[in-house]
């Protein structure tokens, strides 16, 4: 008999998200194995049972309430606003470094040509940290762009998108007073 169903393929099987070949392989196993067949039937029944838990519906005043709260609560200054200053800060830093280097060259006894030579530069510059991907970055496919691209983790614009998650929103005062 073929191998029992694997954990990670049971839910995709029920979701009809397996390839035809994978599905056929599982179907063949299920035809042979009553244990897996029972398990699969129970999962299917469970998914049906879960349907019974109903949620509440939004009130008819939902959209109006959102609009009202948008009007009532002034838009806070985004926390990432300082990032927009970065180009200016960067430019200032470059100028500062150029001035510093210029001063150093004027006062340095070492001839300019030698400063540029490779061995000396190696001494001046800090060891370059190898650009390795973080462990969370796996090679699982392109669907997980957010996590698979380590460059994005350094991307302030992307982080700014998620900054909204942590931005404090004023509690609804009317509700507080209830």
């Amino acid at each position, binding site marked *: 008999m073929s191998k029992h169903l694997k954990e*990670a393929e049971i839910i995709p099987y029920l979701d009809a998200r397996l390839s035809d070949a994978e599905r056929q392989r599982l179907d063949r196993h299920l035809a042979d194995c009553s244990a897996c067949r029972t398990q699969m039937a129970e999962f299917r029944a469970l998914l049906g049972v879960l349907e019974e838990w109903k949620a509440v519906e939004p009130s008819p005043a939902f959209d109006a309430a959102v609009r009202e*709260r948008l009007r009532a609560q002034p838009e806070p200054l985004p926390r990432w606003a300082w990032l927009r200053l970065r180009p200016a800060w960067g430019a200032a830093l470059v100028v500062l470094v150029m001035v510093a280097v210029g001063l150093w060259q004027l006062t340095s006894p070492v001839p300019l040509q030698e400063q540029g030579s490779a061995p000396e530069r190696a001494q001046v510059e800090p060891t370059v940290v190898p650009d390795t991907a973080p462990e969370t970055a796996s090679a699982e496919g392109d669907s997980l762009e957010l996590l698979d691209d380590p460059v994005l983790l350094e991307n302030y614009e992307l982080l700014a998108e998620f900054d909204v998650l942590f931005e404090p929103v004023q509690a609804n005062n009317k509700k507080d007073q209830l």
Partner: protein
Amino acid sequence: MAKTDEEWMLRLQAGDDHAFDHLLGKYRAPVVHFVYRLVREPALAEELAQEVFLRVFRARRNYRPRAKFTTWLFRIATNVALNALRDGRMRRWGETSIDAEDADPQVAQLSVPGPTAEQRLLEAERARQIRAAVESLPEKQRLAVLLHKYQDLDYAEIAPILECSESALKSLLFRAYEALRVKLRPLAGAQP
């Protein structure tokens, strides 16, 4: 030609207010459902879901269509709901409003006259057991079930919300449903 959510979000970004109405119309119910199943207090769920859309609107200029809109939206919703649970807003509501059990829509329906009050009572009891079983799951498993089973998002949409890989998500879902299968076996054997 129908626009994608991402295109609507970009139109909102460009200042088209109508785009916000479109996104509200499409996602107000899914967001309320999701938040309700996490905090299970209807009025609080409504307030928090509004907060989610407030954040969507306020973050419009920073939205980049790299992530799917649904991933972005439910990530915000997850954060808003979990923050509310953690900062004790739940308790505040518990003290000041009617008991959460009474607020359960399936229990609330009991007062509505109907042909089968007994049937409704049975349904409400089954719903309570399902809710309790889902609530007993570890947080990440619970979120995975809510997003997969109740919001019908696909693996590629859910995995970034939970900050895991798709294969890790499939295992997570398996463990969650396996725990539920055991807990809810009595219900599965006796459909109403």
